[in-house]
């Protein structure tokens, strides 16, 4: 074992045909309750997109369902990959993600004043989505090797800090402040969960208010405008503040029980901007009322909590960190999107995972859930004492 070089061993492992019964037992170990929750969420997404499409399966609901099908397959496949394989994959995935972030700056498709998309011909790809998953894998691998006891040494944190900052800076340059913040927060949550010392946290957090000012002064005009319109949407009700006001109006008109499915006046009459993507929750809130909205929030909460519990149940450090990172990623998506449509934070192009129309967010999220499920499938694998 010791003299085996890493790569041939991986190749042999990947190619090795396993007995069918082991395959089935692993499938059995998949957390099907969690899969059910995800399917319920995607089902809500289908119903909402059906309404956003004016009561028709095209143009939104059906393509999204097909993507979800692909996503499910990706998720199950990834769920069966062992932590070892995942750790080996983490470096190349991270490098690919960084390269794509660099590429998107060069050739990215310009959408709404920001370069975010790579057009793959058949499908537009958002590298920043993928970068979040790659970062989770990368940091989990790194901290897995470092181990909790050595976290006290600041030198051990420099490299993961750089690994985090690199995608953050690249995403910022796109420029996509919202996603950059999410990437940064995912990194931070992994540092925190991996056992970073409190004094280190204090040193890092203390200069944040100062940095906030510096960042604001370097923001693009459209980003500043977003913050300003968020603070004073009434200044320009038909301009930039329109989205926030219309979203609130639509939610308010839903009331307790909603205007009824396919009968939301604001959504159906196009008063709601981007109702099939970022503002899909508003549409749900208008048609199903607070009752429907709170159910969706409940399901999102259940998914976050199950993810966190799965990571807690996991007995290896890598799995725990991956599970936590993915859960935090999902949680941040939800919170940013919900806060945005409810007018709590400035508008930024963050979709509601699995509900909003959009391929790359859906597929990367499903890939992430695959990782999460894999930590559950391999929950009982323990770290060998000497590993890291």
């Amino acid at each position, binding site marked *: 074992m010791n003299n085996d070089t890493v790569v041939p061993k991986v190749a042999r492992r990947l190619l090795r045909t396993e007995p069918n019964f082991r395959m089935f037992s692993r499938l059995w170990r998949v957390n099907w309750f969690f899969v059910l929750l995800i399917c319920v969420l995607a089902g809500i997404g289908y119903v909402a997109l059906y309404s956003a499409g004016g009561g028709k399966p095209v143009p939104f609901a059906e393509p999204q369902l097909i993507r979800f099908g692909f996503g499910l397959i990706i998720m199950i496949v990834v769920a069966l990959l062992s932590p070892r394989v995942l750790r080996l994959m983490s470096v190349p995935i991270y490098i690919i993600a960084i390269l794509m972030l660099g590429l998107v700056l060069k050739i990215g498709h310009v959408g709404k004043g920001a370069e975010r998309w790579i057009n793959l011909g058949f499908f537009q790809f958002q590298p920043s989505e993928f970068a979040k998953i790659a970062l989770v894998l990368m940091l989990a691998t790194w901290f897995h090797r470092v*181990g*909790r006891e050595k976290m006290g040494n600041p030198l051990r944190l420099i490299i993961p800090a750089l690994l985090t900052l690199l995608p953050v800076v690249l995403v910022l340059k796109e420029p996509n402040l919202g996603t950059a913040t999410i990437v940064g927060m995912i990194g931070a*949550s992994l540092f*925190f*969960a*991996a*056992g970073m010392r409190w004094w280190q946290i204090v040193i890092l957090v203390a200069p944040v208010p100062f940095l906030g000012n510096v960042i604001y002064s370097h923001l693009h005009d459209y980003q500043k405008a977003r913050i300003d319109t968020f603070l004073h949407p009434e200044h320009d009700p038909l301009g930039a503040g329109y989205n926030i006001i*219309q979203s*609130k*109006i*639509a*939610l*308010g*008109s*839903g*009331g*307790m029980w909603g205007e009824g499915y396919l009968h939301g*006046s*604001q959504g159906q*009459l*196009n*008063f*709601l*901007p981007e109702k099939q993507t970022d503002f899909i929750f508003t549409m749900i*809130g208008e048609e199903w*009322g*607070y009752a429907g*909205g*709170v159910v969706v*929030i409940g399901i*999102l*909460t259940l998914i*976050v*909590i199950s993810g*966190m519990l799965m*990571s*807690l149940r996991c*007995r290896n*450090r890598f799995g*725990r960190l991956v599970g*936590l990172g993915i859960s*935090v990623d999902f*949680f941040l998506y*939800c*919170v940013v999107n*919900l*806060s945005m449509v*409810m*007018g*709590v934070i400035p508008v930024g192009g963050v979709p509601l995972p699995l509900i909003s129309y959009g391929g790359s967010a859906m597929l990367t999220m499903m890939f992430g859930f695959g990782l999460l499920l894999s930590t559950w499938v391999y929950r009982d694998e*323990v*770290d060998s*004492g000497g590993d890291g």
Partner: protein
Amino acid sequence: MPVKSGVFTRRALMIMAVQAGILGTLAYRLYDLQVIKGGELKKLAQRNRTSKRLIAPSRGTMYDRCGVLVAGNFPNWRALLMPEETTDIAAVIERFSAIVPLDDRDRARIERDRRHLRRYVPLTLKEFLSWDDMARIGLNAPTLPGVLVDVGSTRDYPLKELTAHIVGYVAPPNEADAQKDSIFSLPGMRIGRAGLEQTQEDRLRGQPGSVEMEVNALGRVIGEIERVDGLPGNKLGLTIDTELQSQVLSRVGDRIASAVVMDCRNGEVMAMVSTPSFDPSLFDSGVSHAQWNAWMSDSRTPLVDKAVSGLYPPGSTFKPAVAMAALTSKAVSPGERFSCPGYYDLGGVRFHCWNRYGHGSINMHQALKYSCDVYFYQVARRCGIEAIQKSGNLFGLGTKLDIELPHTRAGSIPTPAERRKHGFHWNGGDTVNAGIGQGLVQVTPLALATYASRLASGRMISPHLIRSINDQTLPQSTFNVAEEMPFARSDLDVVRGGMFAVVNEPQGTAPAARLSIPGVQMAGKTGSAQVRRVPRALRESGHFNSMNLPWEYRPHALFICYAPYDNPRYSVAVIVEHGNAGATEAAPLAARIMTDTLLRDPASRTPLSRNTVASADMTMSQQGGMEDKIP
């Protein structure tokens, strides 16, 4: 052996607590938005969803007494811009002006509309589009988002100058109007600015309809929720006979004059001419500066309706009113004679008679017939200015008449008390001058016609222009229902006799006004109103002839009359500005007008033979619907 996972568990639980807290907060925020503030936001949503548009009513039409269209509507193709359907209004207007040129006035109006119009009210870019304009707009439609061509209606005055002063005109409403009533912000709305269009605005305008529509965020109409049809404006039937009006106008010719023909039984104004006139259609799209300045600098004041706004001294036409004052106050009896040596001295001032050789000793009948000034100087002194004012006012002179026109002036018969109130002195000479309708007495042509009607009928005839509303004839058009005047019939007959003599007796002042219609006689009174005092030296030289004066100093020529004398139907008042003498200029003109009027009267025509009637009926029924137009 598993690594101790205490730290991870603690921290993961901390993160979970934070997550649960944040999600809980968001759930509360949702409750706040949807349930607590829901009602308030729902109202906003309703406003988002519906859009109310007003539909311009069609303006009421006007017909003359024979059913001839006087004011109608005809289609006006116009380019509108829906502000909701375009993002950059200024750019669209620029592109539009490259296709259909907009002049400065258009641009100023568009700019003004843009400021105060609401987003759902279409902006009028250009009216009265030609066929070519419409084709070009259609061709360039893709570059003109929100621009559409629609048909509205514009005011049409087929008779143009003929009825301009009576009918008036409409013009685009100004900013103040638009603020008063939102209906004026509708494209193509017009507001009456003169004549009946102005005074009957409320009747003509109609009720705007409205349509409430479900719209989307782009303002595109998704469906109609509720439609309330508007009411078109009332159809007005006028007392004017446009054919007679046209005859009167041609009789007047190029004189600067005013003539009023009135039915003296009910006060219907059958013709009312004021020359020169103007084309009221020019106002509909807004008058050009050049045209406006031309009208304003014209000393003949084409825009002023002289019949109701022109003030003239009545001159000798005032004498019947003075005579009635004297008779009613019992100051003078009809037979009492006054001597006229050709002048009358009062307090060192000499007042002349128009006949410098004098009329000798004459009674009232003769005084009217000869139009003796000295007789009326003395009568005026005898009965006093207050009695003259009272009598004049009863005849409609110096009082505001209740006719349906704007800017009608009352004129005046001032009394010493009123003059002193305004800080003027009153001389005995003022009373004397008032006796012959000079000096401070001022009247309008319409008032003179009313005066003639009241003299003829002995009733308080009140002039009016509207005969019917929506084909319902108004009670004011009924014959002989007006209140009787507070004059003794015998007194009136004395004055009427004098007026008969003016036209029909030898040595009357207006033999030229005798009618040529057999069996119909006319009573009248001439007037020549000085506009300037004749200098004493000139008068005494014996060579004074007002015809030698420059035109603007010549006296106005006036004539009032009614006919037939024994059964009065019509009264006519004519004023020819600077026409010099009523007897030679106004009287023959009035006689011709009266002849025209009487000949148009169906009663004066020879009865149609049986055959002609039958064939006329045939034609009528064949043409089908013709009857509707004849009231």
